[in-house]
């Protein structure tokens, strides 16, 4: 069978098995904690108890299996450190995903809404909203996600602008952190960190080197490393099993493809 006539359903089958099998029967692979993940962990760890952080869910549902574990680990760490959380989003799908995640995790720990966390919801024009929050969060978001007046929530009365926040974290699958760096970080001086899909990490490393970003955590691997640092085994670690076997399957396919290619070339 030549490469041209090779049935690609076999490749699809191999990838399906490589992804599905470790999700059904976990392997339990352990990721070493990389310096980047440790830097993010230390950043959260160094914030004083009661500090306010903003989590912006700037991602689409399609990338949530990769970004969700990052967000999950960060929220768990923030709750463990007793940080107060303000959630928001500048992508409509990220709005519901972020709200769902925060509601689920805060219910588990009994974190009261309004005092320890609030959810601002969605604004369509992110640049204006980012700049607007530097002037007044209450003007930008008069009501929270569910329509409650912001001034009726104790945490909101405590936080008026970025100056009252210790950190802004953008959970993103695209270039949204760049706007956070330019408009919130550049203009108002708030510290920015980001949790990204793995493919976006290289885009933001220059900002990390120039200290415009305080920390970057990337993809399922980053989530798995963060979970290890937190001493838990969550969706990042489980997903990393599947990602590992999928990578190995693709490497194997590339090697087989090249062997077949060179073997075919030698034939007269």
């Amino acid at each position, binding site marked *: 069978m030549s490469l041209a006539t090779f049935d690609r359903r076999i490749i699809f089958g191999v990838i399906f098995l490589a992804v599905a099998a470790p999700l059904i029967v976990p392997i339990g692979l352990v990721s070493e904690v990389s310096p980047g993940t440790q830097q993010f962990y230390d950043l959260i760890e160094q914030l004083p108890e009661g500090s306010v952080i903003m989590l912006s869910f700037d991602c689409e549902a399609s990338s949530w299996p990769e970004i969700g574990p990052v967000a999950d680990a960060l929220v768990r760490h923030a709750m463990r450190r007793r940080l107060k959380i303000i959630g928001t989003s500048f992508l409509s799908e990220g709005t519901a995903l972020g709200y769902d995640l925060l509601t689920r995790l805060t219910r588990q720990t009994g974190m009261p809404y309004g005092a320890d966390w609030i959810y601002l919801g969605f604004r369509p024009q992110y640049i204006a909203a980012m700049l607007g929050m530097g*002037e007044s969060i209450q003007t930008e978001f008069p009501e929270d*996600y569910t329509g409650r007046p912001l001034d009726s929530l104790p945490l909101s009365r405590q936080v008026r602008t970025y100056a009252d926040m210790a950190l802004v974290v953008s959970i993103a699958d695209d270039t949204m952190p760049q706007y956070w760096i330019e408009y919130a970080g550049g203009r108002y001086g708030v510290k920015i960190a980001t949790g990204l899909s793995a493919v976006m990490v290289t885009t933001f490393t220059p900002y990390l080197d120039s200290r415009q970003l305080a920390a970057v955590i990337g993809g399922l691997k980053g989530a798995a490393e963060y979970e290890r640092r937190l001493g838990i085994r969550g969706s990042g670690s489980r997903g990393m099993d599947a990602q590992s076997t999928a*990578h190995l399957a693709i490497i194997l396919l590339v090697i087989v493809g090249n062997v077949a290619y060179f073997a075919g070339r030698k034939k007269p």
Partner: protein
Amino acid sequence: MRRSLPLLLVGAFGFAMLVQYFTPLPAGRAIYGRVLEWMQVIFAAGLVLGGFNYARTHLRKVGRPGGDRVYSALALAALILMLAAGFMGGIERGSLFLWLFDNVQVPLQQTVFSLLAFFVASAAFRGFRARSVEAALLLCVALLVMIGRIPVGEMMGIGLPESARWLVDVPAVAAKRGILIGIGLGSVAVALRVMLGIERAWLGGSR
């Protein structure tokens, strides 16, 4: 007039916001705050307009004979259902809106996106060949990064994660940094051209 007024407005607002950024005067901050509010109103209006346009386009398609009308009818039904669920039942956890989002939209989008893994694997098998020195180099780097980014690479204990990290953090970031600086300079140039009225493509039309 139809073209000069928008050009004049863009130029005036562009330069006013530029000057405002470097001016600590209270009047400047007040104008800045008001402009930010206008931006939100304009974008929110654009969103509503987009919704109406979406509905109009699909209503037209539903009226036309052909197999595609079914999809347009479904798109309209989904729009009405989500609007009704959101406005009538709220958007909190446990609401119909969030249930539909979590159990219909999220799995659908994730399914479509996950198909990429199958196509990437198939394309890599068929097209990723060491046909030349450059292609062989690219192939080796790709394989090294792929294996260095998973725990198996760490377990081998031959410095694969460090090598993969170096490849991602040094050569790849060097190229990316160059691109970013280029984009930054290009953005400044385009912004100045728009503000000065040299760049007029955004106005539309043939001129």
